[in-house]
């Protein structure tokens, strides 16, 4: 079963490399035997965290940002596709990010 990952496609995220991440991630994940289903969503507006990747898990979406192309290897190594929260770029569950929670 493929893992759903949200990669924003708005101008700001794209200006920070979101398109390259969206193309590179499935290739890198496949090489490790993991299938990824990329969904291009809009930004949540937390531009300091863009590109903000969200991985869908049974418990909810887990957010990682700001992600660059160079971070993908370490994110995969930290098992971010299964929602692991160990990577330094992990922002926890998207819904629990304070700026969003206050709204």
């Amino acid at each position, binding site marked *: 079963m493929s893992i759903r990952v949200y990669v924003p496609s708005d101008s700001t995220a794209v200006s*920070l490399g979101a398109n390259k991440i969206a193309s590179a991630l499935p290739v890198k994940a496949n090489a490790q035997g993991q299938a990824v289903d990329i969904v291009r969503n809009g930004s949540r507006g937390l*531009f300091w965290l863009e590109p903000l990747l969200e991985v869908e898990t049974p418990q909810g979406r887990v957010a990682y940002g700001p992600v660059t192309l160079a971070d993908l290897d370490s994110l995969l190594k930290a098992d971010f596709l299964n929602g692991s929260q160990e990577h330094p770029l992990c922002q926890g569950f998207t819904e629990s990010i304070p700026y969003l929670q206050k709204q």
Partner: protein
Amino acid sequence: MSHITDAQQQQIEQILQAHRQQRGALLPVLHAIQAQLDYIPPAAIPTIAAAFQQTAAEIHGVISFYHQFRTEPGGQHRLQICCAEACQARGSRHIEAYAKQRLGIDYHQQSADGKVQLEVVYCLGNCATGPNIRIDDHLVGRVDHATFDRALAQFAEVEA
């Protein structure tokens, strides 16, 4: 006055004809001319002026007011550096200095190989993640020297 070829004259007349019924067509016409010819030849101004029943000075005024319009052929790629307030606060002047030194040119000039034309712009609307640059239609945010070089290589095929 610059030279204008018969082919250019014909293209301009076709553009004017295509916009004949449109109200407020001057800017669309100027954009169309630049899109087709790469620039707006000064020698074309009298033709444009006649079509709009305006003076050549008025047409020249419009062309020179908007920095997007150019009256001589540009480089293959247009590199714009945002120097509006937010980008300046985030270091765009350093990127500006780096770009000028890296390409060996000042604003409104072309690199020696003709690949890049350097321009300044005031706000690309990506203020939260400045400093920003734009190469043709590609917006690049959080620019530092490394991202500048990468963007230049990717979008303008200029290697370090």
